[in-house]
């Protein structure tokens, strides 16, 4: 356990500062845009940017994916097993996602309170009723994105560049095919049912109410599947 703790600490402590670099840069840019808008329009009523969480989403994805190679090599050199490395990586994702969800929840709510025309991603979708659910939702979305990119980078690393490109093209083809299927092949009733299911899964019920437990469960399930997939690959991953 002591060694696992050390590996987790390593992952978290060496990434911690990057979170704050990211926020410093993000809010500096937001401030700059606001200033430009303010100078242009002569008023401070517009913040100019909405849904700042999208940036965080991209950032956690990049951190999750880019960190893989260096950390895997470093921890393998220091004698850790892939199982330990996986647990440490998951802990890092929990850590980053937790902190960033917290910051984004607080900032989203504060910004909205100060400037009612600013909408956070969560606020725009679900409103501003429950701060705790806001945090949980963001946290799970970030986690899911981390796992998705982790899985992607593991797959790319495993099958090589050429095969990855082929796989990407094939997946793109599949997406187009599915869209075509929805538009032209499947009967309207089925499409409507699937759309309804997707809305329900994210908590938007048919009668206009919002059921928060559903997106939580959906995201947990998604994260779980991606996580298991990642583990299945990393436990067979060799150093290159």
């Amino acid at each position, binding site marked *: 356990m002591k060694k696992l703790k050390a590996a987790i600490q*390593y992952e978290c402590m*060496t990434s911690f500062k990057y979170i704050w670099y990211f926020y410093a840069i993000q809010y500096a840019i937001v401030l700059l845009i606001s200033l430009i808008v303010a100078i242009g329009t002569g008023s401070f009523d517009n913040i100019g940017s909405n849904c700042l969480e999208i940036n965080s989403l991209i950032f956690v994805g990049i951190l999750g994916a880019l960190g893989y190679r260096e950390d895997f090599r470093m921890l*393998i*050199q*220091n*004698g850790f*097993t892939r199982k330990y490395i996986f647990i440490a990586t998951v802990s890092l994702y929990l850590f980053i996602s937790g902190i960033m969800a917290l910051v984004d929840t607080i900032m989203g709510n504060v910004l909205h309170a100060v400037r009612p025309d600013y909408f956070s991603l969560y606020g725009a979708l679900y409103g501003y009723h429950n701060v705790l659910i806001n945090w949980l939702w963001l946290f799970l979305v970030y986690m899911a994105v981390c796992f998705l990119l982790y899985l992607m980078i593991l797959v790319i690393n495993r099958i090589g560049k050429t095969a990855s490109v082929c796989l990407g093209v094939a997946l793109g083809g599949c997406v187009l095919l599915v869209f075509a299927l929805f538009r032209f092949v499947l009967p309207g009733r089925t499409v409507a049912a699937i759309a309804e299911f997707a809305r329900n899964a994210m908590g938007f019920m048919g009668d206009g109410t919002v059921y928060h437990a559903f997106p939580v469960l959906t995201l947990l399930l998604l994260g779980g599947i991606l996580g298991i997939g990642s583990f299945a690959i990393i*436990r067979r991953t060799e*150093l290159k």
Partner: protein
Amino acid sequence: MNAIQIKNVTKRYHDVTALDHVSFSFAFGKIYGFLGRNGAGKSTLINIIANRIFADEGEVLVDGIPARENMLVHEKLFCMSEADLYEKNLKVKDHFKWMQRFYDCFDLDKAFQTAEKFELDVNQKFKALSKGYQSIFKLIAALSLNVRYVIFDEPVLGLDANHRELFYDLLLRDFETREQTIIIATHLIEEVANIIEEVVLIDKGKVLLQESTDTLLETGYCISGLAQDVDDYCRGKNVIGYDELGSLKLAYLLGEKAQLPQGSHLQISPMNLQKLFVKLTEKGGN
């Protein structure tokens, strides 16, 4: 069993067989020279021992414990590798501090003292170090760990003569007090010839020979003279290679030295390890 046991290990890359059913042991308490030409399979085997890649068949046991994906060997085995796996943005002193958290048997004070001996600036980031000092950093990390088995993969690459000397000094200084097995994989055979006690020679994915250095030096010799005389002498003996200089022929042999016939014009001379390996691996190439 106190050893690193390699049992029937096979590793293939597509249609290339890097290791072909390799079985042997590194016994505890010795200094090994693990030798072979480029592409012979040295690094592949080291990477399998260190759980960096997986064997397709067979297994590696460290003191009887399977080494694959097993934290039980964490305090037993360390591998200093030629490849740079260390985080490049971390300072040397931070690397040491993390190693102290990762390993119970890491001696932090010793790491800093050794760094001072090598004049390594611990406030530098890994990526800012020269190639030579990156090697030195990796050596210090390995020397500061009191593990039972330590593998050095090309340890003195990029080091100047003074630093090489210092490395061998430190290695031997600790060896007696610590009870360790040291495995040195290298091309620079002559440099380690007096240090290594036993030799494992690998060629084309197979173990060509495992023998004590003394025995090798006792049994390996060179016969030179007129081609006809040399050929007569060599008949029925284990010849591992020839060199020719005009009408002078040199034969390299392994085995008991037979007395030269009375009045013979042949000359016997010792064969050093370097020559021995060049000849042995050349033979494998024909």
